[in-house]
């Protein structure tokens, strides 16, 4: 990536006559940025572009069935939470039925869960949120402690009931308290921060491609009118004030791709 070609292109681009001074400066920094890598061998392609059959790099579809990270109690708590964050109604199914909890489970079991791609070592400081997470816990560990703390809170507050046993109204009270930071959780769990994480992940599960386990039957996309993994709208661009007629399609297709016998 960062090789001679990139630097070379930047230099070549800056010699173009239409260049404004501003972009000239920008490209110069680019060139400087890449200069240290200048000894990396550049590759030159001549003639026909190289091509390999099956060079697609498709995402691995989620495997249905069972939980990969959550235990049974965490799973039922999570399903109850996502259903309160995005409740099902007459506009369509809610967070539980579209599989948001499944989505989160698969994410926590994967590289996202242990923040494999982030620097997670000390020193940790009491610092502004903009400075990133200040703990070595990735999301998976945060969920484990957070869900346990929520259930512990519910047991002491609601006569030994788990979160999933509460009425929807009671559940909303707990979640609101969590969001506002008005309820204290055990094990040092910061309520507002954990709430924010769950809300974020629930939205992702609701709107990410079904290939990742959530957004079942593309219900999230139907709701917001997103057409999905299509990449050609030329036939529709000129049709102003006309609703886009095609149903959404996922990376792995949609149900009409299968023959109905």
């Amino acid at each position, binding site marked *: 990536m960062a090789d001679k070609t990139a630097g070379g292109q930047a230099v070549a681009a800056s010699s173009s006559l239409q260049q404004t001074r501003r972009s000239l400066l920008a490209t110069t920094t680019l060139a400087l940025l890449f200069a240290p890598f200048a000894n990396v061998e550049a590759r030159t392609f001549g*003639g*026909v*572009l190289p*091509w390999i*059959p*099956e*060079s*697609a790099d*498709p995402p691995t579809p989620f495997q249905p069935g069972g939980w990969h990270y959550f235990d049974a109690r965490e799973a039922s708590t999570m399903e109850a939470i996502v259903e309160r964050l995005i409740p099902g109604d007459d506009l369509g199914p809610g967070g539980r039925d579209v599989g948001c909890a499944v989505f989160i489970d698969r994410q926590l079991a994967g590289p996202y869960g242990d923040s494999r791609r982030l620097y997670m070592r000390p020193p940790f400081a009491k610092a502004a949120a903009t400075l990133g997470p200040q703990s070595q816990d990735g999301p998976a560990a945060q969920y484990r402690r957070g869900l346990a703390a929520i259930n512990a809170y519910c047991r002491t507050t609601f006569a030994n009931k788990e979160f999933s046993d509460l009425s929807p109204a009671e559940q909303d009270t707990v979640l609101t308290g969590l969001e506002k930071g008005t309820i204290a959780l055990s094990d040092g769990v910061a309520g507002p921060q954990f709430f924010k994480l769950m809300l974020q992940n629930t939205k992702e599960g609701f709107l990410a491609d079904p290939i990742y386990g959530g957004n079942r039957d593309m219900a999230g996309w139907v709701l917001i009118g997103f057409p999905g993994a*299509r*990449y*050609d709208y030329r*036939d529709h661009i000129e049709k102003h004030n006309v609703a886009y007629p*095609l149903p959404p*399609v996922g*990376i*792995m*297709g*949609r149900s*009409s*791709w*299968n*023959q*109905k*016998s």
Partner: protein
Amino acid sequence: MRRSLVTNTLSIAILALSTCGYAVADDKQSFEQIERGRYLAAAGDCAACHTVPGGAPFAGGLPLVTPFGTIVSTNITPDPKTGIGAWSDDAFVDALHKGVRADGSQLYPAMPYPSYTKVTRDDALAIRAYLQTVTPVDHDVVADQLPFPLSIRKDMAVWNMLNFTEGFFQPTTSKSAEWNRGAYLVQGLGHCGTCHTPKSALGAEKADVALKGSEIESWLAPDLTDDKRTGLGNWTSDDIESYLKTGSNQHGIASGPMSEVIRFSTSAMSDPDLKAIAVYLKDLKTAPSPAVTAQAASTAQMTAGAAIYKDSCAACHRDDGHGVPHLFPRLAGNGALQASEAVSAVHIVLHGSQGVGTKAAPTAPAMPAFDWVLNDAQVAAVLTYVRNTWGNAAAPVSAGDVGKYRTAGK
């Protein structure tokens, strides 16, 4: 016809000579003859089989998979020990014309002598003169890897008796010189029938259905006759010329084995020769292939296919199946697509394919692979759909037809 060609290459050759001080040819093999030989060797695509990709030109060693087993091409550089440098001119002509080697033993027809037999002695000698100028390579090739009983070269004499007619090209006097030049190139050096003509159980070309299309290495070499549905009936002779010269035309883009034929052979041919080929092919009238009724658009398979096409294919091949000229092949009215077997299409949809890039059209657009997203039934559905929409008509494709090629012939 040929004359103008010769003078053309000659003037180019003289130009080259004067600008870069080309090695002076010895008097016996005149420069003109060598250059003509270079051109004819390209027309005969000798390098396709006698050069290993990335290897020394003409040094042999390429394994060729035939219905009978694997045959390895030989070293035809002028190396006297391992190549053909010590062969007499007559021996060389006999290899092409009769399919025999210098020691009198038979060649296997993986070397297309059943086509090359038509090549004139004059042209064969020009090829020989050219081959004498390539760098000699010391490369001993063990050619025989066939299982018994085919491993016995003598048996090829019997095969030849049954399947091989030796004979130089005989012009058809009722046809034009151009037509005859086309016929000479197609039947002889071009050995187009090697791929495009259906084979008998013994691997010989069936003369009665010459160029009616055949399957090779999980690709279909389509019908080249003037058949409207499965052949070149909808192509003009300009379309054919452009396809052979650049690899694409308003109908399609060459892929698979044909892209190599174009890159190394036909794109190097002169315009008059390509025109001659087109004239000849356009005149190949055969009984039209039996009419086929298109699948009804309402069947469950067609409906599923339509959905897949709209979502995955229409962006490039367009809703009306017209594609984009020279970029995305036209599927509407596409002859090859409506052949009785959908081999190439299955192959292309599963594994993807890059079209040919030539000097005249270097883009080489590629079709993405769909094996990771479509299951066998879905590939079958979308192909049944494209084979039976926009006026196309062909037998439906089954999931089983697709499954065979999922791992084969990548």
